[in-house]
């Protein structure tokens, strides 16, 4: 029983395309993409989601599984638990290592530090950074963003996506109560679900078994299919659609009501069949192109948002790092119970903060950022001079990387 709910929950969160109640862990139902990266993506999501999912009580599982917008409190609970999972710092910091060189550049150049920046200005920064990133995109990728190149980064970013640290209160759910509170009334009475080809195949099988679309009744189809969470409403509406499509396959393919078939039946037309084929071909080419463009655009949009989230995290890190640096001397810290982890963490934070600082300075030089950045580079370092002296060679190296990128922008 528990497993069922768990898998329901998982599939729900995963792709929204999984058929309700029919979740086979081994196969990607409803997510049978040919692209390997997508499969990996779904696996990553499944793994991390199942680690964090909440077991829904029996009474709510139906609505939840059936509707893609569960009631707000459930949703926000899920939102809290699944979108912002606690994570180890190592995961976050490992992130840059997992990406390809190109996107690494983009990532590092986009990460902004400066604890002097107030939270309110984050969105502006995000914007600037996004512009920055996109400019780099422009430079590094010629025309089309090759999906394959992005592949490792998308995997890594998704991995990261599911291991966010808990966001501080200022970020958490502005106006929390009403986050995507759906029309709960609507979802309770007429739950929407997402059909998949596999589920539809099952449906067709049932209908055929029961004597065809005209003879089969919703109730019997439902019974035959034996799919958890499927209701008679779903079947009814689906059956109706199915019947309409079957009645006149040609007509339904007209799709747009003002389909004009008469010209095709005109005898003189048959001579011009080749021309029609040409026209159709042209149309398909156009459509294919649009499809490609849309896919590229969507990937970019997703990536942009990834950047935004990454920035947010780095910003939080920055703040935490800065606070921790104000903490007492290392030797004193060792006396704490989780001493090793803490000092390691602090070191890493310091490192990342340094890194961000470097990047920030480069960015500043190039972009001539806004008012609060009026200080010359040296003064911006928030850390005591001793710290900065300790790792000049590293900085030099990182600086070179950034230089290369920044020069391309000039």
């Amino acid at each position, binding site marked *: 029983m528990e497993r069922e709910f768990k898998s329901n929950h998982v599939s729900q969160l995963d792709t929204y395309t999984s058929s309700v109640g029919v979740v086979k862990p081994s196969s990607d139902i409803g997510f049978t993409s040919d692209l390997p990266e997508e499969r990996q993506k779904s696996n990553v999501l499944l793994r991390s989601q199942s680690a964090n999912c909440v077991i829904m009580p029996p009474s709510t599982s139906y609505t939840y599984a059936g509707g893609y917008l569960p009631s707000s409190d459930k949703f926000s609970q899920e939102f809290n638990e699944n979108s912002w999972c606690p994570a180890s710092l190592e995961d976050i910091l490992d992130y840059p290592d997992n990406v390809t060189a190109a996107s690494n550049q983009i990532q590092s150049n986009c990460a902004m530090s400066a604890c002097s920046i107030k939270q309110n200005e984050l969105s502006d920064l*995000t914007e600037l950074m996004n512009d920055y990133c996109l400019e780099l995109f422009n430079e590094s990728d010629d025309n089309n963003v090759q999906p394959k190149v992005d592949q490792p980064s998308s995997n890594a970013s998704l991995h990261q996506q599911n291991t966010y640290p808990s966001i501080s209160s200022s970020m958490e759910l502005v*106006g929390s109560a009403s986050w995507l509170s*759906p029309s709960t009334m609507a979802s309770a009475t007429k739950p929407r679900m997402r059909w998949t080809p596999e589920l539809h195949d099952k449906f067709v099988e049932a209908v055929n078994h029961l004597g065809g679309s005209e003879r089969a009744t919703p109730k019997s189809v439902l019974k035959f299919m034996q799919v958890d969470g499927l209701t008679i409403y779903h079947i009814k509406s689906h059956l109706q659609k199915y019947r309409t499509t079957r009645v006149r396959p040609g007509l339904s393919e007209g799709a747009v009501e003002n389909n004009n078939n008469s010209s095709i039946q005109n005898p003189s037309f048959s001579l011009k069949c080749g021309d029609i084929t040409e026209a159709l071909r042209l149309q398909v080419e156009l459509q294919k192109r649009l499809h490609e463009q849309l896919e590229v655009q969507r990937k970019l*949009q997703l990536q942009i948002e990834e950047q935004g989230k990454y920035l947010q995290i780095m910003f939080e890190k920055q703040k935490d790092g800065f606070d921790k640096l104000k903490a007492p001397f290392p030797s004193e810290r060792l006396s704490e119970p989780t001493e090793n982890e803490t000092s390691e963490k602090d070191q890493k934070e310091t490192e990342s903060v340094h890194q961000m600082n470097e990047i920030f300075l480069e960015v500043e030089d190039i972009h001539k950022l806004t008012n609060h950045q009026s200080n010359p580079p040296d003064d911006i370092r928030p850390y005591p001079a001793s710290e900065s002296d300790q790792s000049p060679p590293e900085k030099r190296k990182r600086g070179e990387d950034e230089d290369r990128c920044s020069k391309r922008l000039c």
Partner: protein
Amino acid sequence: MKFGKRLKRQIEETLPEWRDKFLSYKDLKKLVRLISAAPPSGDSAEDQFIRLLDAEIHKLNSFFVEQEEDFIIRQKELQERFREVMEGHGDMTSIRKDIVNFHGEMVLLENYSSVNYTGLAKILKKYDKRTGALLRLPFIEKVLKQPFFTTELVSKLVKDCESMIEAIFPEREGMSRVERKAAGAAEQIIFRNTMAALATIEELRKGSSTYGHFSLPPIGSPEADLLLTLQPPSPIPIVMN
């Protein structure tokens, strides 16, 4: 051209049944202006805005999921017909036309998804800018997971369709310049809408004066050339004699 205008044009060109299913961009913009001009007590304004957004998203989702369901059904039917035609008994002309139109509609649904997402992102950005709130980032997270934006299934259907198309259209020697011949009204509308969508994307990618979240890199030249060489079809079907 401003997004609002582009959206409007897209809606005009789109399939008739879709016209009222798009994001109410203008209304949302008005609300943002209203809120920023005379801000009521902080929370209620935001709640109101969120409520409207939720309603819009619900509308988008419902429409999208329904269309998706239709596509799943139709695709299966088409596959059966396709098999029949491949085996030799079926009308090649009509199935060609149907498959191409089907393909077109699915791509237009993808476009629908994209356009509405863009609108939402822009509105959220406007809101944040006008009210100084931080609504955009977390909210857009949620949007990304919404059914109307998770278009993987439609994408897969499109690809399946394309492989069918490969099979039913004979080899071609390259893109020749073909005058627009007579086609059914269905093709006209789909074609026009596809053109409009491509034009929109091209514009979006040209590089805006205000660098924003969607200053996507410009499309490579092939697209530009394609668009330049093609004329939008005239509203009056050119009948062949």
